[in-house]
């Protein structure tokens, strides 16, 4: 099962929602569309679902053109942030809805519904109405409903955003487990980079209607290619190329050939800075924030303001002088 997207465009009036989108989702992958609100990720998901028509570009599933097919003919499953269950139907009727549209025989329907309710651990609630369930339970019903028809592709539109933190963490794992077990290719929209990192095989980081970078969570975090991705995926120290040339000349060689020197910045994640206490150290710690397992340090170094993170087991005090070092494999060059 391969979903192939080529050069997709969509405008709303004069506003460009997405442009030049190329992407493929294959096999049993879990792909996250990650980006700030308004970046076009939901528009892309809705186009894939068939709820919105693209202006140009192609969309194929196993080589078959999807563009002319309405949402109801694509055979996908979808889960929205707002549960969106039928309030007048029981949990079992909700889960079996897609099957009854497909005129599946009643006995097969029963069996499939029971199977899925088992999977999302809601067996004893099959006769309840959505209004009697908690938010997390309702969202599990919605997931079961989307999976009941054996969708060719599962689409998730911020499915966990309406839930409180504890329920969300539990459901993340559950959703990922179910998806792995069934092996259904999945595309999830989220604005939460932590959620994307914990769940996705691959992250598609989007900004202003374009794809900034595609890669595994590790790649996006450690090898961001643009300043936007570096910022969005977590905190970082960004050093202009000129500064690097002056202070860390040994690193300047690693700059990619195609990158404009004036635009290039070196991205160093805070936990990759190595700090050692040293009387004559060039760095001076200005502030320490204790965060439990780790501590976050602000320091002055060669006229720069740096952010570092270390295990909270290490002993530092504000005003202390430290040596700062970093290795080439711990940083990445990004373009602004």
């Amino acid at each position, binding site marked *: 099962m391969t979903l192939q997207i080529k050069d997709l465009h969509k405008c*709303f009036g004069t506003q460009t929602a997405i442009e030049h989108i190329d992407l493929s989702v294959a096999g049993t992958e879990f792909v996250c569309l990650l980006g700030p609100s308004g970046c076009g990720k939901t528009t892309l998901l*809705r186009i894939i*679902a*068939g*709820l*919105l*028509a693209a202006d140009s570009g192609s969309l194929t599933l196993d080589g078959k053109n999807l563009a002319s*097919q*309405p*949402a*109801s*003919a*694509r*055979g*996908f*499953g*979808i*889960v*929205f*942030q*707002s549960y*969106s*269950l*039928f*309030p*007048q*139907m029981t949990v079992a009727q909700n889960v079996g*809805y*897609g099957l009854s*549209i*497909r005129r599946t025989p009643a006995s097969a329907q029963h069996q499939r519904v029971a199977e899925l309710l088992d999977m999302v651990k809601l067996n004893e609630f099959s006769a309840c*109405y959505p*209004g*009697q369930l908690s938010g997390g339970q309702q969202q599990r019903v*919605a997931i079961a*409903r*989307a999976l009941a*028809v054996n969708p060719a592709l599962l*689409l998730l539109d911020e499915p966990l955003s309406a839930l409180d933190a504890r329920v969300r963490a539990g459901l993340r794992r559950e959703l990922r487990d179910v998806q792995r077990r069934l092996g259904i290719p999945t595309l999830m929209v989220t604005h939460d980079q932590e959620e994307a990192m914990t769940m996705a095989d691959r992250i598609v980081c989007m900004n202003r209607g374009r794809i900034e970078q595609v890669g595994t969570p590790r790649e996006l975090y450690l090898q961001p290619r643009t300043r936007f991705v570096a910022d969005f995926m977590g905190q970082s120290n960004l050093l202009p190329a000129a500064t690097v040339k002056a202070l860390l000349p040994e690193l300047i060689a690693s700059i990619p050939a195609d990158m404009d020197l004036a635009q290039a910045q070196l991205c160093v994640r805070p936990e990759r800075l190595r700090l050692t206490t040293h009387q004559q150290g060039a760095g001076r710690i200005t502030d320490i924030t204790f965060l439990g397992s780790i501590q976050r340090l602000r320091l002055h170094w060669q006229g720069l303001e740096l952010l570092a993170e270390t295990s909270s087991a290490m002993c530092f005090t504000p005003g202390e002088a430290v040596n700062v070092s970093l290795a080439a494999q711990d940083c990445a060059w990004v373009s602004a």
Partner: protein
Amino acid sequence: MNTATSSLTSNADRWLLRACVWLPLAALLLFFALPMLGIGWRSLVQDSDGSLGAGNYAALLNSPGIWRAVGNSLMLGVSVTLLTLLMATVLAYGLERTAMLGKRFISIAMALPVLAPSLVLGLGLIFLLGRGGVLARLLDIRPEIYGFWGLLLANVLYALPEAVLIVRAALRHGDARQYEAAEVMGAGALRQFIDITLPGMTYGLLSAGFVVFTITITDFGNAVVIGGNFPVLATEIYNQVNGQMKFGLGSAVGILLLLPAALSVWIDRVAAHRQGATTLATPPALTPRTVCDKAFLITSLLICGTVYVVIGTVVVASFIELWPYKLAFTLKHYDITISGGYTPLWTSIIVSLLAAVLGTLLLCTLAFGTRRLPGPAAHLANLLSVLPVGVPGLVLGLAYIFTFNSATMPWGVLYGSMVLLALCNYYHYHTQGYVIMMTGMRNISTALEDATAVLGGGTNRVLRDVYLPALRITLLSVAIFLFMRSMVTLAAVIFLVTPSLSLASVTVMRLDEAGLTSEAAAFSTCIMVIVGTMALVLHWVTDRMLTTTSSK
């Protein structure tokens, strides 16, 4: 969010959706836009020689009778509006912002005038204060009830519920935090009222004022029953057309009547825009204030008592041998044989049922269609749907007669049929029905629509599984609203009834005109019983539906 579903629907679905927009739009064009254009055209066809020109409008300027009617209508409209606003403010404030007792009693009083044709209030006033009125005899007074004062009272009582509804809605949007802040800064109760409450209800009052003014100057029933020698625009238009066959002049007066109504609709929309910001504010809590609460209760009881007494008198008088001289119980007034007996009542019921069913179907498909298939057609339908509320019943009725009383046009076949009466009543109240429908549509989740589509459901599935379940109460409310209005409205249908096809509200007027006041009272009571029953049914079913959904 559904803006682009159009290009991604199957063929059958696309046609179904188009039908949902085009069918109601075509009906709106044929049964509202066309007649309104017709009356505009007709006002330009000069009565003198049948040629086109502004002759009718010139004739208007030169007829002193019409100027007198305009003056009277304006004077009456302004007086009724001021008095009604004052009373509505007291009642609405009492209901929304004080902890007074008897709120249910007051609410019921405010539901009563809606149950009957407006002229029932005039009838009641005549039984109380007219020649041989019971109060007039008891107190030995001869009040001038026929004319300005009678019309003033009857119209105030008739328009009051409408005004209370609007002012209450404005008061409901109060923000407790503002009052708490004022309290902390040391503002007293009066200051708080002037600085917070009053500004908050300005647009509500303005809007209510225009609605009351429009109701008053376009009301026909009371003008006929209790107007006496006090001619107003509504009776003038009727006389020009029915009495003197001056259709052109009648149309010109009709166009004149459109102005204040159109202005009021416009003000209402501006007000709605300005007050549109719905925050998550909670209105101030109701704390009992003994003196204040009592004052509001007494005033409210006086006002509502009047409503109960006036309407109650009509019911009682219908059972009295010879009001007010021979106070023996009798049912003889219910034995109505003239004016077609009870046939018009049955006709009214059938017409109202037709209006309810046709209207609800058309409104539902229109609301569904415009939401799912936005475009120029949907936009036009939305635009047209706002207009009927600005058209007084008399004008609409007149427009209908010009358009449908035609031997040459194909739609002429509808003339003299119940279907046309039903359609006239429905389009008279189209805007209100459309507003209720659109408000109901807000409860429908777009995500659920989308989920249904992705799960494989077509337009018919979306309609059946998403829209209809969410709209049950709304559909019922619209149907019953159309039924109730259709049972009691007089102005629009007065031109459309024929000797062989009359309606209940018209019969009440005819009975009263014939001097059979007690029979008119009896007939009115029958109407009130039927309409009141429907109102109770709606109340009961809605209650049940709400409790069953919330217990689910």
